[in-house]
């Protein structure tokens, strides 16, 4: 098992190198350079050129790439020209919001998906199962932004029970009030994103349970006289739970990628929203940093999933 994990971690290294090269390429493709913002019509073109030369913009690409990577290791992600601040500082302010929102989304998603998947698998073919399968089609097909907008329209504006933007009420004072205000602002986006995110978990759990029904260990448990509900809640559920935990890594990846949409609709100041505003303002150093950061996070997520799966399921270990 350790061998598998070590190998999987080693695969990460070329992946991260390719990712960084890819992001660097994207950064080079983006129009403009770090000085476009500070150059006025009166700036002497010679001075500009000197500045560019000093920044290494005329070096061959491999030298530039190497400098870029070195800076990354020192935590220097560059300077945002739109906000006149180091990119690392700007990102630091936003990451927390996105992480909390994703975490709450994940919790809600599992809280909805696990009982539904269990029910659908246990009562396969029944009315309940069909209802859940139809629910699954809807969450699979409908684009998330439509669901977010409808949710915001009904719960935010029509019923007025949830805030329609932001992360926290400015009036909230004290740690406890602040905490609840944050949760209150996150609950609607997290609930909607969570419900949309149930599709794969429900489908997976349902087919897993249908498969386990005919397994020997279930037959043995039944033969020993274990009551049906216990067979499901203990034996089958436990065996289906671990692979689902393994999928959590991929779920996180999807959530952080999806933050672009949810944060945009709910005007929630996280990384996804920062990404879009930075694209619009052509603040490419921020854009590059976000793509790199989410890419690394996504790779870590899949690493986590693979490791958990190799622990849980010996069959998939790399020989």
């Amino acid at each position: 098992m350790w061998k598998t994990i070590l190998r999987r971690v080693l695969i990460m290294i070329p992946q991260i190198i390719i990712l960084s090269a890819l992001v660097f390429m994207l950064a080079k493709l983006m129009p403009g350079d770090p000085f476009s913002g500070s150059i006025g019509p009166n700036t002497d073109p010679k001075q500009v050129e000197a500045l560019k030369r000093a920044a290494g913009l005329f070096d061959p690409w491999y030298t530039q790439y190497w400098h870029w990577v070195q800076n990354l290791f020192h935590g220097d992600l560059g300077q945002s020209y739109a906000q006149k601040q180091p990119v690392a500082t700007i990102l630091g302010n936003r990451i927390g919001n996105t992480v909390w929102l994703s975490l709450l989304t994940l919790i809600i998603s599992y809280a909805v998906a696990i009982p539904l998947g269990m029910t659908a698998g246990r009562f396969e073919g029944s009315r309940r199962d069909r209802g859940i399968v139809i629910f699954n089609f809807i969450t699979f097909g409908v684009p998330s932004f439509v669901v977010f907008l409808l949710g915001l329209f009904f719960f935010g504006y029509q019923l007025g029970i949830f805030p329609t933007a932001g992360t926290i009420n400015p009036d909230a004072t004290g740690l406890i009030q602040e905490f609840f205000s944050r949760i209150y602002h996150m609950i609607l986006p997290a609930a909607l994103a969570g419900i949309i995110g149930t599709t794969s978990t429900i489908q997976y759990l349902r087919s897993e349970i249908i498969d386990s029904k005919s397994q020997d260990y279930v037959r043995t448990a039944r033969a020993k006289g274990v009551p049906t509900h216990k067979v499901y809640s203990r034996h089958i559920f436990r065996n289906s739970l671990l692979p689902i935990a393994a999928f959590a890594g991929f779920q996180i990846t999807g959530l952080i990628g999806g933050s672009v949409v949810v944060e945009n609709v709910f005007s929630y100041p996280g990384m996804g929203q920062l990404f879009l505003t930075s694209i619009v303002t052509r603040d490419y150093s921020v854009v590059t940093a976000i793509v790199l950061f989410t890419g690394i996070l996504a790779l870590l997520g899949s690493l986590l999933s693979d490791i958990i799966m190799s622990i849980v399921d010996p069959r998939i270990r790399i020989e």
Partner: protein
Amino acid sequence: MSEKQEKNETLVDTPRTIKEVDEKDVVVSAPSGISTIIREFKRDKTALVAAILLIVIFLTIIIWSFFISKETVTSVSIMDQYLTPGTDGHLLGTDEQGRDIVSMLIASARNSLMIAFMITLIGQFFGIIIGTVTGYFRGIVDTIIMRIIDFWTVLPFLMIIIVLVSIVTKYNEWTLIWIIGLFSWQGTTRLIRSKVLSEADRDYVRASKTSGSSNFMIIFREILPNLASIIIVDSTLTFAGNIGIETTLSFLGFGLPNGTPSLGTMISAATDPDVLSSKPYVWAPAALLIIVITVGISFVGQVLRRTADARQRLG
């Protein structure tokens, strides 16, 4: 696949119960794809309704869009801004620029469907070619391509598409189609590859090889026709997904260029809190249409999946 695994599979395959043999025979003697599809639709009333609804919607959009001139859709008349449904012959009202919502809806839906269709075509084309080649020939190229796909699927592709869209200078709907298309063949490749892997081990392929058929013949005349049903199912479901991707991008402002109406851009009017909360007639029809189309397609896709896989059939 190693030799050991291969042996294991044959071992598992040999002792068939009578019931299984029967089922296999039924599949072989099943009259034709179309009659099975009709039978499955008859058994699943929800999907039947969805299919009929989809046909009606698609036909309406295609026929009606011939009667809408580009000028009426794109012409701006500020005087008619935000007319409520029913005024001045505007059945569903007008939007911020005074354009008729019904005409916009038809033109947008046609564009969104066409673009999703083209993306699906590109994605399926590359997916099928790469999937069959890697699955059939295996070896080092297969390993490399699969590693690339593993890596690719993990990347935050929505963000990367947005970056690409924003740095492409000459930009039109075809650029968008190609950018999304080149990001959407991985799933199909993986599916087709796994099917080809198992298909290439079947007796009919071996027999064909022994009798001297070329690889090209085996792939295109023998293996691919057997995968036709799976390809149809996959195309249907990716089509629904591609509608989602295009409308999401257009909604965020990185999809179709300005002036080309899309369901996503229509809904993006709702990013204005006032329009979202008090003028739902501007964005709700487009939202509703997206829901009906995408959910309808996933219902139909599910029925097709059942006809493609005999074990899942309802009867």
